[in-house]
């Protein structure tokens, strides 16, 4: 049976599930998937990322797995003990492995939230990212997710402990295709810190096609961190959309240090006047790793401020892609939108593709973008060597210096130290 047939058949078995919100959403998504299929390299947005190759391998879809805390104990992030923990195993929210500290936080299975007091929010916002992320991969997640998670908190509250979301793939029994789905609702004047990390256990191939939709209300503050340091058999498409429905502050940092094929879509929809968003990214990859960051900042309303800084280091045979889009809609006067992407290619067999895109329909805006791809600066190298620092150490110092202005935006110290340590290890 081909994977396409497996998907067809699996969907038929999901159909039995009757739900007034989820059922039509899933059916529509499945039709969209059937119509569009998996994007090939001719698809403009997937030109540099051959996502089809991941679909050519046989895999089990959303295979339930028995992961225990013991399997994970050396994989937890620093600060784990003090964090609210959400574990998603092979695409399914695991209540047993999750742990909630803070009273002010709300964590529920998504299917439950779709029927309880949060049903209005779910009905309104679940699936809206498919408008901007309209392709067969995103549609597959919507069609196939099961046991998603709904994350929220009480309005006006500061969630004291960060929320750590572990997206775990257990491929010990064979290749796994997982489709985790999360909806995060940050209500009015709330403050939340969210970190997502990907973990593969086992030697089978793991392919995680995740969607996280975040809705940010008036006066809220959201800090989001994504840390990708998975094994080479772990591949991901991570679709993330932040919808700023009220004037609020969003800060995201996406860090990719290891893994197989990685595609990160990050869309920020600035849908209220005077919104603010800061998007940072750091990728430092080697070996055969492929990392592709696609960002979209959509200025819908006037007076919004956004700043994007993505920096990358490509070593070994790694390939890295940055594609950053800024839309400024006609109504969005007084927009300030900045974007910068800087890359260092260390090895002759590594490559980087960088593509900024600005589409501006308003006339009173400040927008800028810049991309650089280069090598370590020869003058700086000579300066360090002339001070007695050997070649390898000099390179390591310059790479760390290069990464610093992204790293300093990882605000929680334990996370920043953790990332810094991984970078140090990579440079040894």
């Amino acid at each position, binding site marked *: 049976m081909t994977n396409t047939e497996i998907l067809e058949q699996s969907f038929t078995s999901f159909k039995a599930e009757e739900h007034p919100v989820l059922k039509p959403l899933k059916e529509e998504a499945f039709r969209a998937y059937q119509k569009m299929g998996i994007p090939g390299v001719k698809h403009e947005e997937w030109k540099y990322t051959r996502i089809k190759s991941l679909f050519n391998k046989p895999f089990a879809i959303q295979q339930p797995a028995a992961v225990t805390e013991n399997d994970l104990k050396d994989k937890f992030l620093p600060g784990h003990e003090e964090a609210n923990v959400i574990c998603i195993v092979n695409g399914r929210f695991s209540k047993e492995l999750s742990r909630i500290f803070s009273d002010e936080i709300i964590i529920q299975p998504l299917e439950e939230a779709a029927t309880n007091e949060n049903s209005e929010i779910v009905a309104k916002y679940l699936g809206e990212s498919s408008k901007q992320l309209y392709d067969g991969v995103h549609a597959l997640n919507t069609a196939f997710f099961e046991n998603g998670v709904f994350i929220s908190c009480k309005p006006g509250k500061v969630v004291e402990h960060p929320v750590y979301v572990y997206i775990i793939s257990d491929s010990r029994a064979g290749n796994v295709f997982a489709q985790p789905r999360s909806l995060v609702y940050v209500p009015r004047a709330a403050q939340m810190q969210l970190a997502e990390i990907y973990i593969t256990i086992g030697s089978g191939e793991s392919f995680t096609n995740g969607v996280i939709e975040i809705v940010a209300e008036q006066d809220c503050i959201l800090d989001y961190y994504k840390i990708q340091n998975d094994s080479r058999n772990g591949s991901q498409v991570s679709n993330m959309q932040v919808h700023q429905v009220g004037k609020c502050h969003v800060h995201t940092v996406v860090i990719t240090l290891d893994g197989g094929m990685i595609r990160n879509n990050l869309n920020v929809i600035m849908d209220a006047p005077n919104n603010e968003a800061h998007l940072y990214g750091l990728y430092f990859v080697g070996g055969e790793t492929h990392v592709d960051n696609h960002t979209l900042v959509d200025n819908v309303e006037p007076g919004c401020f956004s700043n994007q800084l993505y920096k990358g280091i490509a070593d070994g045979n790694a390939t890295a892609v940055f594609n950053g889009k800024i839309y400024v809609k006609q109504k969005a006067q007084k927009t300030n939108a900045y974007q910068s992407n800087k890359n260092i290619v260390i090895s002759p067999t590594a490559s980087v593709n960088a593509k900024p895109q600005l589409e501006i329909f308003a006339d009173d805006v400040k927008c800028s973008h810049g991309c650089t791809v280069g090598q370590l*600066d020869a*003058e*700086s190298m*000579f*300066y*360090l*060597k*002339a*001070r*007695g*620092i*050997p*070649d390898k*150490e*000099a390179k390591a*110092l*310059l790479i*760390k*210096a*290069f*990464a*610093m*202005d992204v790293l300093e935006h990882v605000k929680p110290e334990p996370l920043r130290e953790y990332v810094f340590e991984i970078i140090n290890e990579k440079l040894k």
Partner: protein
Amino acid sequence: MLKIENLHAEIEGKKILKGINLEIKPGEVHAIMGPNGSGKSTLASVLAGREEYEVTEGRVLFNGKDLLELAPEERAGEGLFLAFQYPIEIAGLSTINFIKASLNAVRKYKGLEPLDAAQFLKLVKEKMEMMEMDKALLHRSLNEGFSGGEKKRNEVFQMAMLDPKLAILDETDSGLDIDAIRIVSNGVNKFRNKDNAVLMVTHYQRLLNYIVPDYVHVLYNGRIVKTGGKELALELEEKGYDFIKNEFKLAEEKVDQPA
């Protein structure tokens, strides 16, 4: 300590140094002066190991070792220091982390243990005070946003930290106001002792009022054409480089003329 014999060097096929001979002994201060384009900075760069320059002839012995065979970091380890004419700015690398990496690398080369935190900070404090540097600079990115004077002071600070055997100062006086020259010179003078040596490369005489040289060499067209005491610098200041140019152009033309 340093013995340069018949040194020829070129960059991209262009001959810059055309047979330099120079010997520096411990305890001495030498100044190399010369008009723009005479090869002063090239000499400093070749000694420090800048790769763009190709040495085509001659040799350099540094404490008995063949200097030109050593990588730049090994030269630093052996005790050679170059204060850069244009110190490099490195965003994201703090001055303190830089000097720590540098000092420990040089110590490691010499077979010494790294300094512990307390010893290191004590040394940093002492040398910064000597250079009248603001401590806040330590935690700022290396040379980034530093004024011209702060950059040059930072170079001499690094020299004081590493305590080299031979310090080469490449136009360390350029762009400095009178106060900065005083501070920089003070740093160099405190560094001097009977076992180390200083080679100053400069266009102007004014630095030599503060750091008094034992020998002044005039570099012209890739060769040392005149050597004298500190009074030679004064003569140059008074007469300008034209007298050298005129004197040696004539001599060279004679040499270059076909028989």
